[in-house]
């Protein structure tokens, strides 16, 4: 059992453990933090897979940007602990069990697929040992995949505009009146942070 394998198990344990906690955790803030932990574990795995670049990108974009966004929203909404509301038919045990069963069935299928498929015994051969240098990846990304790249950039732009138009709007009077007293502090901050982001957004556009 080589050093690399040990590392693999360590990172895998981190990833699975944190992810599980993410799902069972009832406090969204914790969920977010745990998810960051899982990302870092995955980043470690990427490094094991000779993809350090992706690993760092994963940390920068996912952990550094997307998750901050989540954290922002959680704080902004001063997210309440999950209420145990029972909202009509959907909360009937039947549907819950259906969901659970589907999930299990899916897992079963995955397992089946894994031990059915023949590609699994692959290990790294000398051909594939060589890691990919960043310039190499960059070249492919900007030459072979240039169109997809441009397309995604446009997608990002659109998403940005959409996010700003959706969330950048100031609270309407009605919403203000309905606002709960508990979270007024966070709401004011929310307004400010929102203003900050909206402004940033405009500057970007």
């Amino acid at each position, binding site marked *: 059992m080589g050093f690399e394998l040990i590392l693999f198990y360590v990172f895998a344990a981190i990833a699975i453990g944190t992810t599980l906690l993410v799902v069972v955790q009832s406090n969204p803030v914790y969920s977010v933090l745990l998810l960051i932990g899982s990302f870092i574990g995955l980043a470690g795995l990427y490094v094991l897979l000779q993809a350090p670049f*992706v690993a760092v990108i994963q940390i920068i974009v996912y952990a550094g940007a997307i998750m901050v966004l989540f954290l922002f929203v959680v704080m902004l909404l001063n997210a309440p602990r999950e209420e145990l509301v029972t909202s009509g038919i959907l909360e009937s045990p039947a549907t819950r069990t259906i969901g659970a069963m589907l999930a299990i069935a899916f897992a079963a299928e995955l397992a089946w697929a894994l031990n059915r498929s023949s590609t699994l015994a692959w*290990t790294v*051969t000398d051909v*594939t040992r060589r890691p990919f240098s960043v310039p190499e990846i960059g070249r492919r990304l900007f030459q072979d995949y240039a169109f997809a790249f441009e397309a995604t950039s446009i997608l990002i732009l659109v998403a940005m505009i959409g996010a700003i138009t959706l969330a950048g709007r100031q609270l309407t009077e009605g919403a203000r009146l309905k606002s709960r007293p508990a979270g007024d502090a966070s709401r004011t901050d929310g307004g400010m942070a929102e203003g900050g982001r909206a402004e940033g957004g405009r500057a970007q556009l």
Partner: protein
Amino acid sequence: MAELNHYLVLSGVLFTIGTAGVLLRRNVITVLLSLEVMLNAVNLSFIAFGRFLGSSDGQIIVFFVITVAAAEAAVGLALVIALFRHVETLNPDAFRQLRG
């Protein structure tokens, strides 16, 4: 020496966890987080395949996935905020105005 199926199994497990989260959680934000988990599981298998097939496509596709995930998170969270302003809750089952 880790083999491909180590990674694939791991990715499958993560994916299932994410799926369960999406289906079972009653908090939109957590649902979105579970979605990210699923995406990451897929990324992992992409990179693993890329590594073991000796092709850089795996990594490149992961970039695109990450980009899309960023867009998805931005819009999704914006929607969550907009919805929260109306119904003051994060329970997805509360957003029923679109019932046909």
